[in-house]
């Protein structure tokens, strides 16, 4: 028996796959879904009444941020520091910590399932995946060929985050210039073991903004991360960090 659930939330869809369902775990899926909507209500930059929007529009002081938002901003600051400023919880001058929040939401969903006793599940938040147990086989979408895969990675406790322009256009901006980076179609980061999606996803956003050369060299320096970059170059579309093979199948 496998429990699956797909939930439309945060402008995308979160897909749950639980290989060890039980009444307690099924209840945890429902709790996780509720949690996703609660996160959206507080952090969505598209909802006028969210805490993030109210601060972004000056209706609320950043100093009065909820403890939850304050902690998110703290984590964002860490990622910004770790990526030499290539990640930012601001977009065009306005508060928008979405680069952290979506992966963090997936991570929290997994935590709820773990607390309920599940040791075998996979949660996909709009294309960013955290899995527990396994082995799992995670396909990486090919931006050249919609519906096809660029590669497949497999392993236990896999975390796979992809940033790219294929689905939503140029929505990632270089925090330094405010412009959309053009050197990559997509950049995928893979980690396993103790890695969690919130940070990995934020790193993927930063590495995408860095572009292929800087992004890959940055990823190469992170011992827990491997990267696959897909470039808008038909002659040599894919490049990967030296250890990427250990995840590929």
């Amino acid at each position, binding site marked *: 028996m496998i429990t*699956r659930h797909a939930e*439309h939330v945060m402008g995308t869809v979160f897909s749950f796959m639980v290989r060890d369902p039980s009444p307690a775990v099924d209840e945890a899926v429902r709790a996780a879904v509720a949690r996703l909507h609660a996160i959206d209500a507080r952090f969505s930059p598209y909802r006028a009444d969210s805490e993030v929007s109210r601060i972004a529009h000056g209706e609320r002081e950043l100093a009065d941020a909820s403890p939850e938002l304050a902690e998110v901003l703290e984590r964002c600051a860490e990622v910004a520091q770790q990526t030499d400023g290539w990640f930012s919880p601001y977009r065009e001058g306005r508060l928008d910590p979405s680069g952290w929040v979506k992966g963090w939401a997936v991570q929290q969903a997994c935590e709820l399932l773990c607390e309920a006793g599940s040791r075998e599940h*996979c949660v996909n938040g709009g*294309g960013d995946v955290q899995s527990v147990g396994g082995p799992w086989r995670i*396909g990486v979408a090919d*931006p050249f060929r919609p519906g096809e895969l660029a590669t497949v990675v497999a392993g236990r406790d896999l975390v796979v985050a992809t940033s790219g*322009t294929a689905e*939503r256009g140029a929505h990632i901006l270089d925090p330094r210039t405010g412009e959309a980076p053009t050197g990559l179609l997509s950049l995928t980061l893979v980690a396993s073991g103790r890695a969690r999606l919130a940070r990995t996803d934020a790193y993927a956003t930063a590495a995408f903004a860095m572009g292929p050369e800087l992004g890959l060299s940055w990823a190469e320096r992170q011992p827990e991360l491997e990267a696959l970059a897909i470039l808008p170059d038909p002659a040599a579309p894919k490049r990967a960090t030296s250890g990427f093979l250990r995840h*590929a*199948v």
Partner: protein
Amino acid sequence: MRRAIVTTTATAAGVVLLLSLKPHGSQSASAQAPVISSGSDTSNTSNTGNTGSGSSSTGSSSSGSGSSAGSGSSTSAPSGTKSGSGSYTGTAVDTRYGPVQVRIDVSGGKVSKIDVLQYPNGQQRDQDINSYALPVLNQEALSAQSAQIDAVSGATYTSDGYTQSLQSALDQAGLK
């Protein structure tokens, strides 16, 4: 139907070949080329079900990536038979690093050996290749149907775009 032409070449369809082009002066190209097969288990068991991926040398070129995607797929006539065995020599492909040509031995439906017949060398090219980045040659488009995946990672889809996504197909398959 395209699946009709997918016979033994489909066994190679799932292969992702990663060539290490690091300039360490090694003379043994094939020895230093890490090679992995992808989805070989599934392609092995469902040769004829691999849909379009087996013929992607044509399909993928329409997206402009034909030169790399066709690296191993535009093969010479196989010396094997429909039993899933044989040796396939890919056409040489010009990458930005120089020509690359591979030969694949398929045995019992699985890729048993990949030889790199040609790979780029030369000082100038080596300098162009960053030591941290491996060019990755995808021999065929990977067919999602044959890859037996649990989830798909990709650029974030919208709630509307999800309905067209592979992840949606996976979710629906599981819900049936």
